[in-house]
């Protein structure tokens, strides 16, 4: 067992940290306050560093790095600006990487290089108003017509929705077949009939234009089905397994930002003639925060390492996401407590960390769904596979 980073991983961390602190941390408060999407310069700078195709092979203009490097990059970006972390992690792990892993040669040629290079932004669209945790409730339909599918329906809460040009969209092709009746399609924003609906105003992650998407008789060539027609649900679960490692790293980044701010503040803020860090009440909080973040960190690396070794990582990724999101939210709450009133006002970033962090317990599978995945895996293991 090796707990050391490789030289490549160390340099990825160092380089992305410098960019994130010098560029992203500066724009983050403004984007947040004004509910503003990323300026083009930021998107271009991310692209120039190949941050849109971290794990995509170099043949398709990606950086070809491993999952640990990916986690380090997402943590650093999210620590500076969680909403940028969201744009990057969704684009990478539930759009670019799935096309890289599950896509046909033609699909890769057509879509992957544009995504990995950042020329186009991606979105992954499963959620509907009546189908959240329960994917089988999906009402968007795709009907076969010759060599095409015709998609009709409405999606909501689509991360990157308003800026994405390439999206993976889930639709039911055979309602009677249940989970096996769902297919994933590669849909271009430019296809006639695709439109962007309302852009949500949110508690956090405000720089990300999360939106509704409408599909009105959208004709998609049958070559654009990702994997096999009957595999949509199975692939979605695999894609989300990959995505959750990224969301876990994002939660860790937000938690680290809150922790570091609180630790520094505890040494500076004086009450009763001493820095508040000298009070055990504060020290205990800081100790718990750090320990909680470290435990999340190693669950994330474990899941990423299993993935890099082509070993099953579904349960590990669920545990990483569950623990990271829960712990990071707790850390943000404690950080605000340490800051007192100053943590609650907009002048300091702690309240932003708090608002941004909350969604990590909800999206890409709620904490409760993570517990179900872990619980199911436990039952399977201890029942000899009979439950």
């Amino acid at each position: 067992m090796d707990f050391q980073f490789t030289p490549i991983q160390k340099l990825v961390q160092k380089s992305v940290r410098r960019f994130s602190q010098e560029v992203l941390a500066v724009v983050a408060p403004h984007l947040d306050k004004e509910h503003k999407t990323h300026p083009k310069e930021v998107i271009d700078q991310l692209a120039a560093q190949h941050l849109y195709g971290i794990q995509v092979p170099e043949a398709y203009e990606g950086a070809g790095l491993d999952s640990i490097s990916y986690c380090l990059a997402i943590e650093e970006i999210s620590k500076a600006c969680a909403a940028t972390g969201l744009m990057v992690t969704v684009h990478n792990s539930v759009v670019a990487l799935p096309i890289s892993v599950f896509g046909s040669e033609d699909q890769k040629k057509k879509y992957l290089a544009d995504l990995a290079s950042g020329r186009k932004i991606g979105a992954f669209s499963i959620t509907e108003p009546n189908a959240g945790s329960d994917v089988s409730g999906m009402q968007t339909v795709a009907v076969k017509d010759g060599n095409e599918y015709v998609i009709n329906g409405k999606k909501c809460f689509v991360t990157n929705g308003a800026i994405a040009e390439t999206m993976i969209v889930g639709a039911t092709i055979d309602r009677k077949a249940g989970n096996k009746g769902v297919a994933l399609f590669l849909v271009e924003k430019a296809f006639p009939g695709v439109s962007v609906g309302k852009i949500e105003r949110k508690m956090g992650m405000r720089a990300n234009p999360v939106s509704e998407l409408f599909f009105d008789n959208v004709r998609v060539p049958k070559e654009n089905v990702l994997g096999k027609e009957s595999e949509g649900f199975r692939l979605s679960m695999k894609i989300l397994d990959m995505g959750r490692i990224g969301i876990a790293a994002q939660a860790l980044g937000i938690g680290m930002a809150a922790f570091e701010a609180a630790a520094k503040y505890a040494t500076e803020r004086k009450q009763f003639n001493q820095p508040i860090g000298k009070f055990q009440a504060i020290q205990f909080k800081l100790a718990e925060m750090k320990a909680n973040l470290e435990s999340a960190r190693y669950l994330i690396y474990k899941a990423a390492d299993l993935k890099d070794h082509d070993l099953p990582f579904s349960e590990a990724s669920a545990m990483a996401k569950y623990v990271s999101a829960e712990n990071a939210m707790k850390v943000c709450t404690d950080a605000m407590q340490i800051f007192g009133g100053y943590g609650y006002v907009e002048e300091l970033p702690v309240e932003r960390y708090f608002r941004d962090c909350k969604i990590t317990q909800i999206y890409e599978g709620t904490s409760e769904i993570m517990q179900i995945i872990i619980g199911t895996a436990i039952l399977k293991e201890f029942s000899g596979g009979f439950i």
Partner: protein
Amino acid sequence: MVNIAVLVKQVPASQSVKMDKNGMLVREGDLIVNPDDLAALESALRIKEIYGGQITTVSMGPPQAKDALLEAKAMGADKGILISDPKLKGSDTWVTTKVLAACLKRFGPFDLIFAGVEAIDGNTAHVPYQVSQAMKIPLITQFHALKIEHNRLIANRIKGHESQQTQTALPVILTANKQTNRPRYYDLQRIKHAFDASVETIDLQQLGIDENDAGVKGSPTQVLKISQIVRKRENKRLEGTDKEMGNQLIELLTRNNLLKT
């Protein structure tokens, strides 16, 4: 095609600079590429993007200084040469200059040599000037724009509030710092390949330098002592009515030459 060399030094991250009781730099804690050297490399990369060519980074330091050269490769340098020899321990800027100049001659000829203005550990700013002297080539400082025409370098320099245009034959050594440019962020694709091949490491013997001319023995200057400058601020409390306190304040400021009447 321009053959470019960039002088690079690995230094402690600024928060962790420590000296031992003999005034020698303690190389521990986080090590980084000297910030001015990143600006030098950025200038070199911009020249290469326009005119083509090859960038070789050169560093003198302990074996771990190879990390600085590998990082330079991640930023865009083509190759790195590390001069590392235990006999160099304790060398001053004079020895450093001799060693770097010998290395530049051996692996050159270079058309352009870029260097940072100074390193954040020793802060002498000696080396680029001395290399210019040792190699008998011109030195250009404070440039903000460069071009090459008919084998001559044309440099626009900051001169107070003016821009001065100078030109010189090649080779030339140029110094950069954080006013010169903003070093680029590393491309992950380049980071991935920065470690594909290590840097070339050479010792004193390979450069034909006698060990008596190196290290503490070969160094004419010696750092005698490093001490911290402590600035103390004194708090003074004024009492009385507003008018009295106002008068006391004026008197205090006048007495300390902070207020001219």
